[in-house]
Every structure is written in structure tokens, then in C-alpha cells.
């Protein structure tokens, strides 16, 4: 049981009011008959850092690749930076930075040759930032990309994605292979850059503490749909774990309309609720009275919420 979808949009941040960096409508995508995205709708307002959460295999990478036009859609419509994400693309691609999940590019090249090649195509290229990050992350310019560790490759991908000062930065699990120091460093670098007006970040990750650190908005992908889009502060303020307890315990979880998740744990009925939803709160109280149970509310951090909902 639980809700299927929450369409509540996130309030626009630094961008112009109502401007969207990316919008997806009715996306469908299947692989070998297995539906990965099912009528997915998603709006990312300009000027926000959005964390895309979902379990392994939920389709996060597929969704991001579809958004960027790298994987053909079965159905649906995508707009990126104000234009449909179909041809012609041209220079708009230069306003997008992308860090893929696995960085396989040009393994035969050396770092300096790769960066010089890439820089040649961009009008905006922050060479000072490149120098700083290469130095901070101790990336040897003369090394071949194939000789880098997975973490170092990810660092290089991040350097390359940040250097052109993109308006939309799409990061597919960018810090999965980074050590904690490099991860914090990356976030500390990313934030000032992307908090400027008009900059948007879509950030797929499993590390919920990183999303808390950057105060990201959250989008949860489950069952091929975005089922939750909220600002982190709102999640912290409103989402609660409600535990129904009674002497004889619960064998089955009593239904609660509007609950985000429900399960039995040690004979207790446990729900995830949006405390700001007055109707849901009232339904919970009525259920407790009917079942002669007491209600205990506990705060949920993002990881708890992810475990409950994903």
C-alpha cells in the first residue's frame, strides 16, 4: 500500500520564477519488454540542486540518459533549458555538463591531451578551475586515462563537466568512487559554482548525507515513476514515522489512506506520513482510536525515508 505519486512541485530557487531547467512528460522506456520508465512526469525548476534517489535498478541512469537524449524514448516528451530535447541541439549541449556513472571515455588518451581537446570546443572554459581541481585532487596531467583509478576517473569527469561552467549539470552517481575527502571537496567546489543564478544540478546518488549536506531537493524514482519531489527542509519538517502500538500487537497492517508506506515490524504497525497533510493526520488518529492503539511519531532523516519509500 502507500501512495503512487506526489506531484507537489518544488518552489523555484535562484532562477526566474516558474522557469524550468528540465521537464519530462509521459516518459516510457523499456528494455527487452521490461518497463523501466512508465509514464514518468518530472519537472526540475531552474536554480535548484535536485537529488535523484532510487534503488539499484530503479532506472536512474536510464532516466538521466533519456533526459539528455542519449537513449531513445519509447514515448514521452522532454524539454531541457527551455527547448524540446530533440534536434537540433547544437550549442545547447555546451550548456549541459554530464558526469556519467562509469567514465569510459578515451582511455587511450592522456589527461592533458583530453582536456586540451575538449577545451578547444568550448567558448567558456574555466582553465583556472581546471588547474585548481587537478592540483587539489592530485591528478597527474601526463597520466593516461586508462591508468587512473575509478575514483580518479570520476574526479576527471567532474573537472571536465565543471570547466565549461554549465547551466545544467547532470551527475550520475558522481561520488560513488570518491574517498570521503574528495567527496567533501567536490561538494564544497560544486556548491558555490552551482548556487549562482540560473544554475541547476541533477544529482543521482545513494549517499543521502551528501544530499543533506548540499540541502538538495529530493526526487524519488520508484516503479518507473517519480513518486516524490520535495525540498529537503520540507521533508525534514513534515515526514514522520508513525508507529501504532497496542497490547496484543498487529498481525496485519491496518490500511491507512494517504500513507506513504506501511509495514509491520515486531507486531507494531508502522507508517510513513506527511504530517502536514491534515486529512492523513486525522485518519491516523481515527485509526488509532478504532484499533485501540497509541500513536508514536518519530522524525525521519533522508536515509530512513529512502529505506521506507524506495
Amino acid at each position: 500500500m502507500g501512495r503512487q505519486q506526489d506531484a507537489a512541485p518544488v518552489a523555484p530557487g535562484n532562477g526566474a520564477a516558474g522557469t524550468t531547467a528540465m521537464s519530462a512528460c509521459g516518459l516510457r522506456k523499456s528494455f527487452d519488454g521490461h518497463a523501466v520508465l512508465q509514464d514518468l512526469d518530472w519537472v526540475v525548476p531552474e536554480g535548484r540542486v535536485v537529488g535523484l534517489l532510487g534503488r539499484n535498478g530503479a532506472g536512474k541512469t536510464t532516466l538521466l540518459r533519456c533526459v539528455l537524449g542519449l537513449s531513445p524514448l519509447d514515448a514521452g516528451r522532454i524539454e531541457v533549458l527551455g527547448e524540446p530535447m530533440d534536434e537540433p541541439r547544437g550549442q545547447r549541449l555546451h550548456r549541459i555538463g554530464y558526469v556519467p556513472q562509469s567514465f569510459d571515455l578515451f582511455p587511450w588518451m592522456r589527461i592533458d591531451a583530453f582536456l586540451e581537446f575538449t577545451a578547444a570546443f568550448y567558448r567558456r572554459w574555466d582553465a583556472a578551475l581546471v588547474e585548481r581541481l587537478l592540483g587539489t585532487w592530485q591528478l597527474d596531467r601526463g597520466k593516461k586515462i586508462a591508468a587512473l583509478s575509478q575514483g580518479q576517473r570520476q574526479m576527471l569527469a567532474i573537472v571536465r563537466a565543471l570547466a565549461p561552467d554549465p547551466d545544467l549539470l547532470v551527475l550520475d552517481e558522481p561520488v560513488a568512487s570518491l574517498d570521503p575527502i574528495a567527496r567533501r571537496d567536490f561538494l564544497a567546489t560544486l556548491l558555490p559554482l552551482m548556487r549562482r543564478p540560473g544554475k541547476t544540478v541533477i544529482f543521482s546518488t545513494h549517499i543521502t548525507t551528501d544530499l543533506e549536506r548540499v540541502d538538495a531537493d529530493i526526487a524519488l524514482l520508484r516503479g518507473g515513476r517519480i513518486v516524490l519531489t520535495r525540498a529537503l527542509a520540507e521533508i525534514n519538517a513534515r515526514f514522520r514515522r508513525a508507529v501504532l502500538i497496542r497490547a496484543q500487537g498487529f498481525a496485519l497492517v491496518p490500511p491507512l489512506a494517504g500513507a506513504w508506506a506501511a509495514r509491520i515490524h515486531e507486531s507494531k504497525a508502522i507508517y510513513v506520513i506527511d504530517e502536514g497533510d491534515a486529512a492523513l493526520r486525522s485518519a491516523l488518529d481515527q485509526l488509532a482510536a478504532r484499533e485501540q492503539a497509541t500513536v508514536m511519531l518519530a522524525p525521519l532523516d533522508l536515509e530512513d525515508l529512502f529505506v521506507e519509500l524506495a
Partner: protein
Amino acid sequence: MRAALKLALLPLRIAPWAAVAIALLIGLGGVLSTIGDHPAPWIALLFAAVGLWFLWLLAGVGLKGIARKETLLLPDFTRALALAGAAWGLLFWLAPCLIVAALYGLRPAWTALGGGAAGAAWAILSSSGSRSSLWIWVLIIGARFVPPMLWTALEPALTGAGLPLAGLLLAALLLRLTWQRLFPAGDPPLPESPLAAPDPMRRGVGNDTPSVAHSRLVRRLHDWSGEGAGTRLRRRASRYHAAPSPARERSLLRALLLPHEQPRGWLVRWLLFGIFVAVYALALGHGAQLGMVAGYATFFAMTGLNTIGAGMPRLQPSLVELYFTLAPPTRADFKTALVDSFLGVLPGAILGAFVYTLLAALLIDPTQWLRVLTTTAILAPPLALGTLALYLNLPGNVILRTVVTIITVFGQMGAYWTGYVLLARLGPLWGGVPTLVLTWGFAIGAWTTARRLWIGNPLSFDPPRAKAGG
């Protein structure tokens, strides 16, 4: 035991069609040997020997497929491999030798034991991707230059009962070499561009395996070529950045995708390939048909072109980055830029044809060098373009790909040989001009069609066989 069985069946499972063809070959030998009034058992033996040799080649291919250091971590892997090897040895080495013993006596069986062991080990070494297996050709060619007096001195040893023992020792040595090659002690070599084919052993039908270990000299040569490639890339990047233009973009793209298509890369390739061409020409000697040898040399110059078709799937993951970097207006523009950059392989292939055919001419019949170069000048450019066109859309199916490759290879050699003969018989005007018109007509037609087909095919950014993402 189950693991050993799996390993023993692995070579047959990875190429069942080859196993069937080998079985047919052996069976055909049996049938042929019974035809006529005087059955000829040696025909069956010959076919059986060739069939068995192919089987051991398959065993090498199977071994190469599982040759990862991580494989050695599997519990009891070496024991299972030894058991599988023993089963293969029993079935495809000892059993045939026993049959020989039953039919012809112990002495021939002893010879078959030594010769079979060396042959099987050589086959495994050859198909495991080692260049060392090519030394046998040096031995065969070298045998031509051994003075008769030395042959006389060696005769007792060569005809004595001890020679098969030498075969057995050689087999042990070759198997040890194979093991070292498959599971090298050091780190694996870093990958090259999927579109680069810098050395002879990496070229061939469907060769999409990772790099094999190089000798120190070859590594140094590649490093030297790599430095040249890096310099060229930086120079072209700064030129493009200073004043972008479509021509400069194509030139920069070529420097990225085809790093070895520059003078240093050519020199390294000519050196490595030149050895093969020289060995081949020397093996045939002065009596050889120069047109055919030069045709073969041209084939060597063109073999690298198939890496464009075969390497593209492995380049696909890198295309994402390239796509964002080039920011093409349409996907078709992106594909057009890529396909036009592939033309960058042509100068190296054409110049290579000049080098190899000249080398062949100088080694076989130096008086004909001018005719050979004229033939090359007429034929190499259209042949290179036509070959690139045929390889551009190589089918995914390995059998179809092999068929296309064989047709292309024989087409190249046949066209060169025909052109050479026409030039020799009819002269440059009546022989050369029609050849020029015909080959260019074919090449331009094939390239235009192949290019259009390639651009029209859907663009994939996924690695080969990759499906859904997480």
C-alpha cells in the same frame, strides 16, 4: 569434476560451427580414403591431422577467452584446467597416436606422439594471441639457407628416434610460453584507441580482444608513436580553438580517434609489418609471381582498415563525451563528422601499400620496382577507399563478418594482381586507364553507399551488448 567438464567443453561451446566444420573435415578424410580401388589411408590421416590441429587452435581460443588473472582466484581452477587438458590430450593426442600404432606400428606412433604434441602446443600458442608462434615461419624460411653440409651432419639426429622426444620437449616449452602469455606476471597493457591497429597480431577477423602484452621494444615504439600523436592532437586543438572551422574540426577529430595515423605511427607500423612482408617475400624467393606478392603486400597495408568497423562498438561509450563536446546540430551531423574523420586512415594505408609493394619488388625482382609502384599508384587509393567502404558497416554476426572480410581480402589481392598483369601486358594507357576508371568507379560508389548507410543507422551510445541502466 563439473568445472573440468565445463572447461573441456568450452572451446566447442564458443565456436560450435567451427567444431562441426572440423568434424566434417575429419569425416571427409575418412570418406575420401575409401574411394577408389586402392584406398589411401594417408588422406584420412592428413585430414585427421589438420582437423586435430584446428581443434587445438580452438582450445587456444577458449583459453584466451578465460585468461584473466581473476580466473586464477576460482577455487581449484588450475586443477580443473589440468583435468580438462588431460581429457583433451587423451582424446585428441594420445588416442590418435594409439590408432597410428595399431595401423602402422610403434615407430610412426612415436613420431606422431612427438610431432602431435609440438603441433598441438604450437596451435594453442598461435590462437592465444602470441606473436612468438610466428617464429616457426622464420625457422622454415631459415631452413632454405642452411648449407647442405650442415643438413648431412644433422641427418642422423633428424631421422633418429630421439626427434619425437625433442618434439615433446618443445611442446612443454611452448605450453609454458602460452601460460606466461595468457597470465602474465606484470600489469596488463593500457588500451589503445579502438580504431587504432598498430601491430600485426591485433589485426584480423573480428579481433576485438583487449591488448596483448608487447615486448619492451614494441612498447617503446608505441610510446614514441603515442608522443607524436599527443603533439599532433595539441597542435590541432589549439589551431581549432584559435579559428574554428569544419575542416579544422574534422582534422582535430581525426587526431583524437586515429592517434596512430601520423608519421611516427606509420613508421612504427611499416617497421612491424615490413618484417612480415619481407619474411613472406624471402620465403617465396626470386621465382615468385611478383604481382601476387605485391597484391599480398597491399592486403597487409589495408588490413588495419577493418578496425573502423570492428572498433566502433567499443568506441560507443566514449561517443557520449564526444557528442557533448562537438555539440552537433543534429545526430546526422555528428555521424557525418565521425564517418568523414575515418577517411584519415587512408593516407597511412596508401603510403603503406607503396612501402610494402616496393619492399616486395626489391626482394623478389628489383628490376620491376617501377611497374610495381605504378600499379600501386593506380590501385592503392581506390582499393583503400573501397576496402574502408566494405568494412564500414561490418555485420555483427561473426560468420557474415568473416565472409565480408574474406571477400574483401581476396578482392584486394585479386584486383592488384589483375591490375599488375593488365599493366604488364597492355601498357599504362590500355591497361592502366581502364583499371583506374573501374576501380575508382567501384570505390566511389561503394563509399557513397556505405557512408549513407552508416549515417542512416541509429546512433547508439551504449557499450556493446549493454542494455538497461540502473
